[in-house]
């Protein structure tokens, strides 16, 4: 066997000389920049992949939560790594953070409350992205459910930001939660009309519209004897997405049918009595000409 030369590892692997350009004042600047330039887009891509998977598997709301839960921590890790590459020690920062934290804590009570309320909203899920909700006087489509707030798009295309804390404390109506909705159409008729006939007509109108559901069946509810009219409510059901157009159709069909049947829908009016229901009010006819002297009646 011939001689076998075994080279020491440090002789076999030549040392890599790092060019001076990668260092500025002894700091690996390029490496830090590379971490930043590669890391942030990579974190975005991973977060987006996770978001798309969550949307396919669950829904858009969970996709948003997953995206934020992956991206922001990843960015934090990248920034900490970059800071360490640049030689910045985090220990003094953490030390100072204790003092700053107390100050920030007092100042950020509302933000923390909003964040915690956001978790409650996600867990309880009273609504999801895409639902129409009503909060106080505001009605809109839920665009995003974020850490601090929920963003709505109103039907006239304005954006409304509602803090999560406000949503947890307030009554929220989720308009599109269930697949069917009841349309309540108030109908007032003159006292002289036949209430039974009105009820039949209203039910005919509802059942003749193919987009009004036959089950649950439409009904007519007697609401009361009003000051100017006998008041009813036609209660019928339709699918939630077409609630508005079908409701509009029923209003139009009721008006058209009442006009055709000669049924009076009274406007508000008052009957006045002079103390005796047989004695008429005294009335004097005033000329059509311009009124003079402050409107005094001619004798």
């Amino acid at each position, binding site marked *: 066997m011939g001689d076998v030369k075994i080279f020491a590892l440090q002789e076999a692997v030549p040392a890599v000389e790092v060019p001076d350009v990668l260092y500025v004042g002894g700091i690996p600047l390029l490496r830090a920049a590379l971490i930043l330039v590669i890391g942030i887009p990579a974190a975005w891509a991973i977060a987006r992949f996770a978001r798309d998977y969550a949307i396919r598997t669950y829904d858009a709301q969970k996709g948003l939560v997953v995206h934020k839960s992956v991206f922001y921590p990843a960015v934090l890790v990248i920034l900490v790594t970059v800071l360490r590459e640049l030689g910045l020690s985090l220990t003094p920062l953490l030390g100072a953070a204790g003092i700053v934290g107390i100050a920030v804590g007092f100042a950020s009570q509302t933000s923390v409350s909003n964040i915690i309320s956001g978790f409650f909203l996600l867990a309880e899920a009273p609504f999801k992205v895409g639902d129409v909700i009503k909060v106080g006087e505001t009605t809109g489509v839920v665009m995003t459910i974020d850490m601090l707030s929920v963003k709505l798009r109103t039907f006239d295309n304005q954006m409304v930001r509602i803090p999560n804390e406000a949503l947890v404390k307030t009554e929220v109506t989720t308009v599109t939660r269930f697949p069917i909705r009841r349309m309540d159409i108030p109908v007032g008729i003159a006292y002289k009309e036949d209430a039974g006939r009105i009820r039949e007509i209203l039910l005919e109108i509802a059942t003749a519209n193919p987009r009004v559901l*036959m089950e649950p069946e439409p009904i007519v509810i007697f609401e009361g004897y009003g000051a100017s009219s006998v008041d009813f409510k036609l209660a019928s059901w339709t699918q939630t997405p077409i609630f508005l157009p079908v409701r509009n159709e029923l209003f139009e069909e009721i008006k058209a049918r009442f006009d055709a049947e000669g049924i009076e829908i009274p406007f508000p009016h008052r009957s006045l009595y002079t103390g005796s229901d047989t004695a008429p009010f005294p009335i004097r006819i005033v000329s059509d000409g311009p009124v003079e002297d402050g409107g005094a009646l001619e004798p």
Partner: protein
Amino acid sequence: MPTVGAIERISVGPLTVWITRVGDELRVSHARAEHGVAPPIDPPDDIDWNRWSLRDVPHHLSVLPVFPDRPLLIKPDHSFTLMRMASARIYSRVPAWVRLQVVETETGLASTLVELPTETLSDTWWGDFVEGSLAYWLPTKARRELRPDLFEPHLIICTLQLSNGSTDNLAVEQLVLRVDHLSIFERPGELWGEEVVVEYQGESLGSDIRMEDLPPREAEGAVEITPARAQSRGFRARTFARFMALGGFRG
């Protein structure tokens, strides 16, 4: 396929369909009888046409009856109670839809242009206030007897063999017929759906539903002309509903 400029007219029950060709465009329009008055022979001038531009190959038109595209909610003409271990046979009449297809003569490739209901059916809901599915409300009642006067060219007779395999009596007030699983058979002048066997297993278990893949015995000699939209030989599902099941005003 109509020649260019000519208008073909097809009448199926209350539905009238007009088909014409203008250049390479196929146009279809339709109308239904209202209050017993049939549509005119020629299409009105202001009628809307659906239009398709076709490939430049020989085509022919295919017109087929099909079932509606949703389940149907059926009520018997008289509600009755099906005692445990008892069975009953009921007949329902379903207004057919008309499917217009363009078939390439050489390849046999068929493309559906449109499906038109012969009668407009009202929407209804099968389920409860929180969840369910959209269905059609069948205006004709299901009957226990099959009489000759019940046959009309556009109505498909569906036969349901109901049986109560549970330990409770079953009030038959309304039920859902899932027509997307049914084929259509034809005997001269008559359309039949394949027989459906429904075995009620109890309130919590639903019903076993089985399609027989054959016309009912009352339609001996009928041949299949339209296959089912969804191929299935059987499944278990909720089929019967009671009037009180949908809460709200009636509790």
